[in-house]
């Protein structure tokens, strides 16, 4: 009897050891850092949920095979409240959990606050949506979204070259890095292309009255208004412009995504054009599949942040397969060799600076719905 018990015991121990080794060794942990609470919470939540959809898809399809090991992806996402003060703690918390790669931070400032540490740790860092230039300064850091200046330049080229506009007015937020970053590059590029910025009007975060800016612009011979800002601001600006009887076409940055959800009358934004890497209502097989999976899981429509998070996970997958290893140095080296077929671009490749190379897409509002500009 004793012997039987002993054998059973040993067998049990071996079985437990084997199972624990199997599950422990085969998990590839993605460490996410972004805001889940606070004013920017919606961005972090979107990125997290988009990434979770991608992880589910990949795991359901059998995980990621690297050499002769198959890894199951897992995500630990820590809240940084979009604050530079909290981000280092959130980053260190995911590192304590044994993260293999870092997805984040979601916002630019928080991202910059951890780049020095990720560089010192030599870990692969891909920010889904940190659009400031400084986010990817180090060799280990990459970005999924366009940078602020890239967006400004793309829109300037589109407006001057494709549409032939020459006199453009700008309304921007002086207290916001995103807005000022786009505006600077946009104005420089317009000047370069021989266009003219006839008015450059500033506002502050949380402003709701734009009549002063719009009146100034009304007094100029502007042919179009460019508003590099978020959709809340765009809602007020377009409404007040239409109340004043202005009929100038509006152009925007990717912060405009979601503007249809807040306008009282869709007619005020009809015909506006903004740069956006992702548009949920486009009739494209891959987009539809993603949107449906997202709706089923979270009862919400994915925005561009969700798409960025989704692409981030597929980027990690591609890097793992290309590198044939999960060592940080190999993953980082593989980043410039991969090509990702994502939601925000197909294909997405990365240059040595860490910036993505993908087509800029323009979205317009037509009959009260978003569509890509042909």
């Amino acid at each position, binding site marked *: 009897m004793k012997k039987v018990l002993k054998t059973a015991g040993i067998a049990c121990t071996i079985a437990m050891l084997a199972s624990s080794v199997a599950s422990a060794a085969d998990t590839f942990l993605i460490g996410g850092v972004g805001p*889940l*609470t606070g004013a920017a919470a919606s961005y972090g939540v979107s990125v997290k949920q988009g990434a979770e959809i991608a992880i589910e898809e990949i795991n359901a399809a059998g995980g990621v095979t690297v050499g002769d090991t198959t890894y199951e992806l897992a995500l630990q996402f*820590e*809240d940084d409240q979009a*604050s*530079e*003060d*909290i981000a*280092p*703690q959130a*980053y*260190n*918390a995911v*590192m*304590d959990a044994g993260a293999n790669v870092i997805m984040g931070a979601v916002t*630019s*400032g928080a991202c*910059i*606050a951890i780049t*020095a540490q990720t560089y010192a740790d030599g870990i692969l860092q891909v920010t889904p949506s940190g659009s*400031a230039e*400084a986010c990817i300064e180090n060799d280990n850091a990459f970005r999924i979204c366009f940078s602020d200046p890239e967006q400004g330049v793309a829109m300037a080229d589109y407006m001057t070259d494709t549409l032939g506009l020459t006199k453009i007015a700008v309304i921007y*937020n*002086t*207290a*916001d*890095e995103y*807005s*000022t*970053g786009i505006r600077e590059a946009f104005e420089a590029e317009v000047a370069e292309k021989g266009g003219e910025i006839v008015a450059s009007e500033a506002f502050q975060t949380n402003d709701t009255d734009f009549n002063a800016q719009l009146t100034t612009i009304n007094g100029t011979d502007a042919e179009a208004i460019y508003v590099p800002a978020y959709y809340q601001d765009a809602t007020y600006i377009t409404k007040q412009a239409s109340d004043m009887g202005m009929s100038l076409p509006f152009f925007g940055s990717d912060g405009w995504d979601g503007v249809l959800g807040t306008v009282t009358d869709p007619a005020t934004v009809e015909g506006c054009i903004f740069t956006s890497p992702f548009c949920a209502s486009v009739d494209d097989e891959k987009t539809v599949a993603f949107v449906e999976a997202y709706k089923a899981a979270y009862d919400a429509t994915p925005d561009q942040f969700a798409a960025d998070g989704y692409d981030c996970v597929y980027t990690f997958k591609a890097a793992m397969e290309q590198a044939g290893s999960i060592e940080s140095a190999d993953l980082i080296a593989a980043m410039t060799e991969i090509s990702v077929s994502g939601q925000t671009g197909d294909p997405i490749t990365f240059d040595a600076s860490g910036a993505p190379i993908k087509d800029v897409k323009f979205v317009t509002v037509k009959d009260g719905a978003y569509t890509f500009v042909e």
Partner: protein
Amino acid sequence: MKKYGKQIIGCVAAAAVYAAVMILVNGGFLSRQMMSLIIPVCMNIILAVSLCMVVGFLGELSLGHAAFMSIGAYSGALILKSGLPTVAALPLAVLVGGVCAALLGLLVGIPVLRLRGDYLAITTLGFGEIIKSVFNAATPVTGGAGGLKKIPPVTTYRNFTFVYILMLLVILLVSNLVKSRHGRAICAIRDNYIAAEAIGIKVSFFKTMAFVIAAFMAGMAGVVYAGNIGILKPVNFDYNTSIEILVMVVLGGMGNITGSIIAAFLLTVLPEMLRGLSNYRMLVYAIALIAMMLFNNSPLKRMLVEKHNMRQAGKIE
């Protein structure tokens, strides 16, 4: 011996805390998450103790503490970025950060401290917003909304010794100041403004003095912040930050330095300890805050304090 008893206990406690932190850090007993909290704890203690002097001892509500911190942070950061060797740059930056904040404290204090109570609170609030706007607008120097970046990381947990000494100096200065002749004058102003004036205390002088010293310390804390985070953004120094510091002081008990230190420690560490609760983290944090405030005013706490006092009195007898 009896006279120095408390000082000796304080010294021993300070040395013990230092030794404990050094052992924990160098022995690898702390998680990285906890290590990244060491400097924020020290910084918040400096901020809370300095604000404790204004709110607790002087009895004036200031909502502009984050503004003084930001002035110290920006001026210190510019020195840190100047390329001097760290050994020289760090003490110089801390000093310049403190002096700049103190100068502004003086500039603001002279006109503003003629006001009292709610009026003073609102003016300091306005002052904080002005400073924020100035930093936002002065893009060539401060980096504007994008923030002042690439500040050398000179006050990480590896430089704990320097920050710890700074923190001890601040605590020592404040606790000795409030026990001095000047400190009693400051407390007298809080307790009865008219009586203090009637017995010949120069009310505006002492008020300004307390205000300027607190600004100086907040400026130094700002430099520690800059060297720890590496990026400064005007948004991070809005009135919310001032209120967070105020919460520490109120939670610690007005005019209670030890209380402020404990509250600063608790309120810095608590949100991180609650990370396991994921979505409910900030909710639980807020509930914990309410519970602590209620406890602070509860009969239970009063009873405990009375018991403690009785025991102390018994010992003296």
